[in-house]
């Protein structure tokens, strides 16, 4: 974070030549850190006027007024805290995905503007006055709801993570992506507000024969997924708000499904239609896509739950251990689609020994959970890992254990223990170990 700018500059003066060249490299990589990476002399020359004992320039003039920013934006110094995409990953940017900068975030709530996006036909800009939700099929009273109608029903707010099942999918065959934003950034966590789907289903009257529902989006892909009625009646929310404000366009404005703990794709955005039926529809997104191909050529279908996962977000390739030997707080996130995170263990030696991390409370069910671990680094190379356990006793597996069962072709649901190699220089690399 940019708070460390001053420290970095001071630290830079103490570096051995090899480490200084590494810092210069990363300094060249980022506009603001250019200042940070420079030696003390250069930093003084670049702007000593704002440092002690001088009075900073921003204390000598008035700041912007209350009418200047009717909707606030982050400081311009935070311009690098953005979603990023991988251009070679998909054929178009309308049917594509981008990644949450999880290495830049603290706590468990993802700011709305940084939540990863996955669209199959672009993000439509829908006029809420002209948006409708139709519920029909095996129901007693097929109904059409306006947004006003939906907001009149009793509401709930819940904090839940939402993860694309392809999160980490580029790493099944080996360590490929040089950054935690790309290895684990298809996840976000928000406070969602809306009406429980069970409330709406009671309103239309579900018929006895109904066992599944089809959810359909109002986008250019008219994206559909089949969801078992049992889950629909359990904890699914038809949402209109995200972190207190209306859902962002790219996250499903004005209405989306939130299916806690289940793969992102079933959380249908721009929700326009729910149809009740007696069996699943076997649509494209639940046959051709979002099925897990096993080594025997058979594909697992309707693998909805996102199993427990975790990753250390500091340090990581984007956030090296750049202060040399000494104290570091390892920080990261853990989550499970089956319930609460119960425990996160940390290893610095590639899984030989494990130590329990501190969990930030309160821990919510099917939510990101922040963990922290204090480390005194002696400058030796490390193999850093985190291992999450959830309240069902499920433990995040190694990549070797996962591959032994599922091979390398399943694309989806790769939730294995992740390894960062820390070099003596403090640089952090994405590696896999056996």
């Amino acid at each position, binding site marked *: 974070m940019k708070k460390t700018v001053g420290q970095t500059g001071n630290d830079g003066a103490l570096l051995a030549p090899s480490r200084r060249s590494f810092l210069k490299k990363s300094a*060249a*990589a*980022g*506009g603001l*850190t250019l200042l940070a990476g420079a030696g003390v002399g250069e930093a003084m020359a670049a702007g000593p006027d704002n440092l002690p004992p001088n009075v900073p320039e921003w204390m000598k003039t008035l700041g912007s007024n209350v009418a200047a920013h009717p909707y606030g934006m982050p400081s311009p110094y935070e311009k690098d805290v953005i979603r990023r995409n991988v*251009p*070679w990953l*998909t*054929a178009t940017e309308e049917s594509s995905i981008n990644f949450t900068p999880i290495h830049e975030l603290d706590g468990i709530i993802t700011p709305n503007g940084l939540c990863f996006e996955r669209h199959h*036909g672009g993000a439509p800009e829908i006029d809420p006055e002209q948006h409708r939700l*139709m519920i029909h099929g095996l129901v007693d009273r*097929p*109904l*059409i709801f306006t947004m006003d*109608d939906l907001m*009149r029903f*009793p509401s709930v707010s819940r904090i839940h993570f939402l993860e694309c099942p392809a999160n980490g999918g580029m790493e099944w065959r*080996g360590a*490929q*992506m*040089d*950054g935690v934003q*790309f290895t684990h950034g298809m996840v976000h966590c928000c406070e969602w507000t809306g009406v429980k789907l069970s409330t709406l289903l009671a309103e239309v009257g579900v018929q006895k024969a109904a066992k599944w529902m089809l959810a*359909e989006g109002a986008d*250019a892909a*008219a*994206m559909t997924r089949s969801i078992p009625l049992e889950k629909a009646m359990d904890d699914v929310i038809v949402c209109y708000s995200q972190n207190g404000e209306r859902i962002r366009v790219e996250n499903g404005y004005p209405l989306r499904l939130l299916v806690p703990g289940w793969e992102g794709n079933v959380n249908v955005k721009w929700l*326009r*239609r729910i149809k009740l039926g007696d069996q699943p*529809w*076997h*649509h494209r997104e639940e*046959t*051709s896509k979002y099925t897990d*191909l096993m080594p025997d*050529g*058979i*594909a*697992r279908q*309707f693998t909805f739950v996102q*199993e427990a996962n975790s990753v250390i977000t500091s340090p990581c*390739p*984007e956030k090296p251990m750049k202060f040399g030997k000494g104290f570091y707080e390892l920080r990261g996130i853990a989550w499970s689609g089956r319930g609460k995170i119960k425990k996160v263990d940390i290893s610095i030696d590639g*899984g*030989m020994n*494990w130590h329990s991390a501190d969990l930030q409370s309160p821990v919510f069910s099917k939510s990101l959970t922040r963990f922290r671990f204090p480390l005194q680094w002696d400058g030796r190379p490390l*193999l850093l890992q985190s291992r999450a*356990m959830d309240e069902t006793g499920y*433990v995040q*597996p190694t990549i070797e*254990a996962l591959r032994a*069962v599922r091979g*390398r*072709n399943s694309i989806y*649901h790769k939730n294995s223990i992740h390894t960062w*190699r820390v070099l003596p220089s403090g640089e952090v*690399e*994405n590696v*896999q170990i*056996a």
Partner: protein
Amino acid sequence: MSRSLNLVALLIVAALALPALAQEKAHKPFGFGKPATKEEIAGWDIDVRGPDGAGLPPGKGTVAEGEKLFMDNCAACHGEFAEGAGRYPELIGGRGTLKSDDPRKTIDSYWPYAPTVFDYIRRAMPFGAPQSLTNDEVYSIVAWLLNQGDLWPADKPLDAEGLRKVKMPNRDGFLAGDPRPDVKPDTCMTNCRTTPPKITSDLAARLGVTPTDRKGD
């Protein structure tokens, strides 16, 4: 005196509160929303179910017509033989590859149900102009695709009945029902390895496939 007045007041409050509480418990409808008419439902009810083709509309198409339509609407991305172009997906081919290191998941190698092809093309294709084709046109494109995969004869018109009867080669290739958790939990805390960790993959920092602005440069 004041006590009995209070009691009366309480009873009145209770009587007023009762209907609202009862509504919550008995799932009596709130009465929000409006009934959906048959016409309204018909306009939006576009789904076709894979296994039994429920929802397939009337109409029919031909392989010959489908070829023309495919060249005009689809070939730019999916290739003239549905072999794909650039990063756009191939649609036909790759049977027998699902166990290999390079599985090719296409309509004829992977999709379990033919009616889903109709469903998907009608709802989402052509990319950028979805729901612009007539039902007959969609039947024609599906007929041509299935013909490319040797699953429909060149000279036979395709309709709902025909599409329901197509048995896709990979129909039995899916396991419905989630077998997870499928890895035994390991909760060892000390001396957990018999051998030191061995790096099996460490090219991420050098492969050059990560966007170069990852740190904002």
